[in-house]
């Protein structure tokens, strides 16, 4: 049997090399030209604790991390027990023979350590596993061998024992009768590819946008962005620094934004909530800045290492009073890169705070993507004031050029309601003018692009953020099975692209798959009069494609039977 697609899950205790094995497999497969995607989940603890990482390898672009497991690599009994149910019927469990499992037909015991030592080095245990895996899908042994040779070039001994370990694993698996068919040869994607995680892609995107000021505070799963900036955002005119809290982060980037910098911070839910007051100030005083919220499970301290899309409502209205912040949410690793540029462009263009909503799911997974096109989204820079002193910074109902300290045009950026100079006022007319001015500027952001297909259908699905991948895969399957459903997607959540809003208003039903309890995004669409409804999930895990297919089908059928929305 030829296979285009293959899913392996490595499960064990933190520290057993689960993540390393998976990353190695993904990189090796991607290097020979497969498409790969990983997915990791682990408890909020440093060493140990049940951990698993999944790798999907495919000849075609990968949209989700895979519903069912072809091979489970179980490194301890608990892992075996917890994950065996997800192995597909014709799948295989590979387990370490240091422990025993109950009778199981499709289980391949591998004496991992014994074989690794035989290869000359206990550390090569992972290679034993990969060798065995290669046999199961009938992968040419050169794939991994070449990768090992390249990876450890110049360290002959390492190449040697790893190559041996690969071979011993392969031979051991070959003694069993297990086979999962043959993975088709890779169809190497055109153009340069990179293998990257969402957090890294987003960080580099921010640098491409021209970020020159970063203040952050550690928090999972946003810490890698912070660490990236600490390392890379240095040199004259640039600044990256550890704050004492998220309140300091947000107010510091507001100060920097005021001073003319492209300033940013990244955090997760708890930190984002602490930034609320600062975000209200940035909106009120019209100061550009970008806040990344890498969502995790909430509320409160919540589920730091799980994925969820439940910060959307709060991102729109973090603070008291009338405001509605611009929100962009990438849906793929590629979009992590480009959305960062868009976020800065929006901040500079409308002169205010922009929320970039990422997710644990994307932040921590690796995927191959085409080398980003640096010309695709040209960085924008705010219009600065270049005249004399005596400028009316907040005059009129529209955006006005922003003076930068150190040049003429001094004014007060004010968190109290203010007049054109920025001085505090209590006049009713001013509050009306300034409120309309602040909201009016959002019009500048309504030209975002979006995806639309099958627009003739009165029913559409419209996932957002990280649910794009599984949503798309489900949609493609449904279309392939002959259903008529439209597809909409945008990373520009607020303000929505004006044309998209118009299109959505025409639909009888817009189904929004999203990872939260409240159906936050469909609620938001309903406030505009769109007949939207969510398919929700709040397990801390991403959607499975098959589950989505089923739930969408059911909802569409119900619609056909005349069931109306709540």
């Amino acid at each position, binding site marked *: 049997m030829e296979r285009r697609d293959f899913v392996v899950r490595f499960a064990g205790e933190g520290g057993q090399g689960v993540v390393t094995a998976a990353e190695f497999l993904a990189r090796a497969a991607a290097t020979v030209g497969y498409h790969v995607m990983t997915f990791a989940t682990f408890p909020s603890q440093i060493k140990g604790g049940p951990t698993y990482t999944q790798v999907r390898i495919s000849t075609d672009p990968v949209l989700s991390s895979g519903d069912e497991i072809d091979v489970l690599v179980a490194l301890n009994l608990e892992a075996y027990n917890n994950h065996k149910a997800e192995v597909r019927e014709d799948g295989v469990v590979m387990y370490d023979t240091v422990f025993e499992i109950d009778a199981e037909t499709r289980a391949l015991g591998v004496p991992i350590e014994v074989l690794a030592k035989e290869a000359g080095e206990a550390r090569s245990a992972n290679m034993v596993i990969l060798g065995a895996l290669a046999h199961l899908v009938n992968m040419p042994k050169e794939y991994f061998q070449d990768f090992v040779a390249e990876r450890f070039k110049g360290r002959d001994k390492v190449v040697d024992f790893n190559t041996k370990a690969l071979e011993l694993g392969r031979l051991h698996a070959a003694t069993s009768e297990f086979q999962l068919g043959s993975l088709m040869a890779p169809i190497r994607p055109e153009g340069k590819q990179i293998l990257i995680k969402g957090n890294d892609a987003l960080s580099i995107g921010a640098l491409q946008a021209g970020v020159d*000021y970063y203040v952050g505070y550690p928090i999972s799963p946003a810490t890698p962005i912070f660490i990236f900036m600490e390392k890379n955002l240095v040199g004259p005119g640039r600044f990256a620094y550890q704050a*004492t809290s998220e*309140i300091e982060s947000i107010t510091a*980037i507001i*100060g*920097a934004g*005021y001073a003319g910098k492209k300033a940013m911070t990244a955090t997760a839910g708890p930190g984002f909530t602490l930034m609320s007051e600062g975000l209200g100030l940035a909106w009120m*005083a019209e100061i550009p800045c970008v806040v990344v919220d890498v969502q995790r499970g909430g509320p409160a301290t919540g589920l730091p290492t799980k994925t969820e899309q439940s910060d959307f409502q709060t991102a729109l209205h973090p603070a008291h009073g009338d405001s509605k912040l611009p929100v962009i949410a990438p849906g793929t690793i590629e979009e992590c890169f480009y959305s960062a540029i868009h976020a800065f462009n929006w901040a500079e263009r409308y002169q205010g705070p922009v929320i970039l909503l990422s997710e644990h799911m994307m932040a921590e997974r690796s995927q191959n993507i085409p080398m980003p096109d640096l010309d695709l989204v040209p960085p924008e820079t705010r219009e600065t004031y270049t005249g004399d002193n005596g400028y009316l910074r907040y005059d009129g109902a529209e955006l006005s050029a922003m003076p930068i300290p*150190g040049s003429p045009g001094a004014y007060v950026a004010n968190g109290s309601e203010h007049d054109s100079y920025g*001085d505090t006022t209590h006049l009713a007319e001013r509050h009306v003018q300034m409120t309309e001015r602040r909201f009016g500027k959002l019009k500048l952001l309504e030209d975002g692009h979006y995806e639309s297909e099958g627009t003739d259908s009165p029913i559409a699905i419209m996932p957002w953020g990280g649910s794009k991948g599984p949503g798309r895969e489900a949609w493609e399957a449904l279309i392939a099975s002959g259903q008529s459903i439209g597809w909409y997607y945008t990373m520009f959540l607020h303000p929505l692209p004006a044309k998209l809003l118009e299109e959505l208003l025409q639909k009888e039903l817009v189904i929004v798959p999203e990872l939260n309890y409240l159906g936050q995004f469909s609620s938001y669409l309903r406030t505009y009069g769109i007949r939207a409804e969510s398919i929700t999930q709040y397990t801390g895990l991403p959607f499975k494609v098959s589950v989505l297919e089923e739930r969408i089908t059911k909802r569409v059928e119900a619609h056909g039977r005349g069931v109306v929305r709540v």
Partner: protein
Amino acid sequence: MSAKNPEYDFKWCPGCGDFGVRRALEWAVEERGERTGEPIYNNVIVAGIGCSGNLVHLYEGEQQPYGIHGIHGRTLPIALGVKMGRPDLNVIVVAGDGDFLSIGQEHIAPQAARNLDITCVIMDNGVYGLTKGQSSPTGEQNMVTNSTPYGKLEVGLNPLQFFLSVGVSFVASAFSGKPRDMAKLMGQAMDHPGFSIINVQSPCTTYNDTFEMLKGSKNKGIEPALYDIPEDHDPTDWNAALEIARADGVPVGILYQEQYSQPLHQRIIDTIHPQFQAKTVPEMLEAFVL
């Protein structure tokens, strides 16, 4: 500002100490401008929320500095943003004791540890003026206010001791009734390469009028609490400074000034820039190529 802007109508109460602080700051900024040749628009005033913070709008010089009048308690991290974004600017914080020492207290020790190169002018009146007279951290134990109708329960905070203890590299104490002297202190604080705080006794004539206590009254036989720090005090001596801070009375002058003060932005230039080779975006991406 108010001169050119009829819409802005905020006024301090008659006799409020903050008038003197404003005058002193205007003088100090002007004097600095003349001395350094830097334009006034190189100054950024970051103001707290309180009667005191309104100084940023009431600054009435010929030319006006930039200002940020943000949210309660966050002057310091906003100033961190401005200063570390643009180390060439002169950044001044103006705030009340409530803003700076209660809700904003958390931000002091970190700037001291960093030695952020800004100047803070604290208008200490022992109460929350703008919210109409509640107790503030610097109010004394047993003080009766509308929020402490049976007397304040906790010990009053000694701000000078606090600043010294957390390592502020320039600590001075001043009185709003002596704007000329204060202006001079402000000039010195702005010249100090590091984190400087001037704690100003700026009485609230409406809710906590301490003028008499501070200046004394011959008629009533009240000794003045204010006294000038003796000429022979060595401001580089931290222990001597702490002694002054802990002693009775309200000193006027510089308690402490670190001798070799290296501010944060200078440390970065000295230690990080030489170590680092900036990568371009294509270079960064290249590291991820398969």
